[in-house]
């Protein structure tokens, strides 16, 4: 269950506008932020808030790249597969990433630290090859830079947050 305050603030926002369905993406994001991903329970909660059927929410949740229907790692890595990144060596970067993390695209490391997902052009072509980690952009990347970033994040991720 999402916390009462969150539910109330969302409900209030929804009540204040003419076309509540316009908020569905925002609501999905808010609920996803709470759970870390959009669980089955979350889908139902979103549906209830917006007076939609869970199936309608499901349709949307599976349509958008940034809504996760499965649990994701602490760090979600979106690898840009756009043309510039591709010209600048995105394939070998991706090979390296999957090798290093031991997962394929669409998977999460067993320790729950990293998820690896593809994304269509993120518009950082001047920094190609580029990736997003938790929506922050990194680039232009080399294999060494990538290793540094992963190591730093892993160390950060292991420190318990206060």
């Amino acid at each position: 269950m999402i916390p009462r305050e969150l539910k109330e603030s969302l409900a209030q926002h929804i009540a204040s506008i003419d076309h509540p369905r316009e908020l569905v993406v925002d609501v999905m994001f808010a609920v996803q932020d709470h759970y870390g991903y959009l669980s089955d329970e979350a889908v139902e909660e979103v549906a209830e808030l917006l007076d939609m059927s869970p199936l309608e929410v499901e349709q949307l949740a599976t349509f958008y790249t940034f809504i996760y229907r499965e649990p994701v790692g602490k760090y979600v890595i979106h690898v840009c597969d756009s043309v510039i990144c591709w010209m600048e060596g995105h394939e070998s970067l991706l090979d390296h990433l999957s090798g290093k993390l031991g997962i394929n695209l669409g998977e999460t490391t067993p320790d729950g630290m990293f998820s690896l997902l593809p994304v269509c052009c993120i518009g950082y072509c001047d920094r190609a090859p580029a990736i997003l980690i938790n929506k922050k952009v990194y680039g232009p990347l080399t294999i060494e830079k990538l290793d540094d970033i992963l190591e730093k994040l892993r160390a950060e991720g292991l420190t318990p947050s206060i």
Partner: protein
Amino acid sequence: MSKLELRERFASIQRESERRNEEKNKESIPTIFIVMSTCGLASGATETKQAFEEALSEKSIKARIVPVGCLGHCYAEPLVIIDHPTAGFPPICYYQINADRARILVRSYLEGGDPVLKYVLGAMEENDLIPAVMDFPRFSLEQRLVMEHCGHIDPNDIYQYVAKGGYSGLVKALEAEPEEVIDLVEKSGLRGRGGAGFPTGRKWRIARATEIDDKFVICNGDEGDPGAYMDRTILESNPHQLLEGLAICAYAVGANRSIAYVRAEYPLAVKALQKAIKSAEELSLLGPSILGTSFNFEVSVFQGSGAFVCGEETALIQSIEGKRGMPQHRPPFPVEKGLWGRPTVVNNVKTLSSVPSIILRGPEWFRTIGTEHSPGTAIFSVVGNVKHPGLVEIAMGTSLRTLIFDVCGGIPKKKEFKAVQIGGPSGGCLPSSFLDTPIDFDSLTQAGAMMGSGGMVVMDEDSCMVDVSRYFLDFTQKESCGKCTFCRIGTNHLLNILDRITKGEGREKDLELLETLSKDIKDGSLCGLGKTAPNPVLTSLKYFREEYEAHINEKRCPALKCRTLIAYYIDLEKCARGCEVCVGCCPVDAIFTTKGRKKAIDQELCVKCGECRSVCPPEYDAVFKVSPPELAPIIERPPEEKKESKKSAV
């Protein structure tokens, strides 16, 4: 409410802006402008800013630090402009200023008065001491209307935009009748910058003419074309210009509500826009009864969440309505029946950002820029194999050659130009014979490409056009929403055929098949995505047919790109005795020592990663790439060598 009152209310905002400006100038301390848009941040602008702050406080130097938006010179980030009024120099633009260089600048320039010439890109004003940036081709050939203030103002400070004449266009529009505003836009000849080039004024007039009161204006900022990031930069660097354009549009067509659809991939742009909306509302430049007039206008931001097809206007509307972003049949066009069934004007970020200056300076002025049928400027993100990638705004009609070679410095590493891909996955690849084509809506379409939203990918001689087409089909195939059969299945088939060709398994009839299938996909798809998906294949087939034929008939990749069709070998004449560099870098132990302690490649093991070629010291330059692979001389690996290499691997 009289015009006088409207003007008076705006004048008080202008006075406040002037007052703030004067206050700053009263103290003649240096100002440090740091480019803090995404490109700047990604290259370390945060660290640069921190270094400046630390160094200034260590030396107790008083200076102002102002974060500004993007100047478009992505190759030179982090960019810093220092205005040091007492040093006797004009404001100077510095390139690639990392934390160390920031400290040096504080020590040498701010403290010592030496402008550190080796980090200077150019002076921001004409002077006798330092070459001015205006004299560089990059600056002199550019003509900035939409990006005029990008990089010169703090996007988070509305008063800085007002000081540059911002929101005066809106005031002028509010003084006029809505029809007069539409007349101005129509006369200017402004065409939609999202790619299709529909006359903006005509779109507005249709929306105005509908009798329904409840209308919407949507700003399309769902920029998804691979290789394009102009909208992101405008949103990050000068969101107020867009808001002003939006408000003018809404006033003209009679809408009271607008939605700015921005990609969630652009968090900084979303934040900048939200902040700008808030500060404009505080000054009554947006919101209920703007500047005391009867015009109410509310803007909200909608975050697209990663779906390329949502950039198509009907899909975008579906997405806002909380449905899957799937394109709908047109007609009815959104301008007649759009969001929630109401007349809706959908305009691109660049189109709307062009509007304020048209209103302010008049349509005749706008028409002096660009060509007769495509007046104004075009903004491109020129990326790929060019020396100075970045954002460029040029007058329409400028040739591709000028843009690629003069403005962006041409092809790096002494390579040859091969093709330029314009218009994203919907556009086409043009060869060098088209370099003198003027950039405008009609000429590009005629050439087989399209204006698109402004992504321009430059490719050098090492790019294989079959592989590039394969890449684009892979893209559209993934991004197809699946509604139309031809787009969903057809693009997949195209991809399979291209895949086959790049692997050397092409068949004789493949080219014909590509052409007929492409035609079917174009005919059988509803929206722009499917209708244009085969364009990369068709244009490359038209201009680079011999490359396709080489792949199919000779199993040869002329650009030496397709892995299955190439082989690496080491020239024994050139290889240096005893040099082991390539041996260490090979990930599969395919390199062995042959007679005379020279190296050779075991073709059976080689995975063609090319590492050996990139590490071979330039004085030997002994590793070669050939296609077809049979051309590589075969050197037998001695049996004991095989064992040994395994041992050393363990």
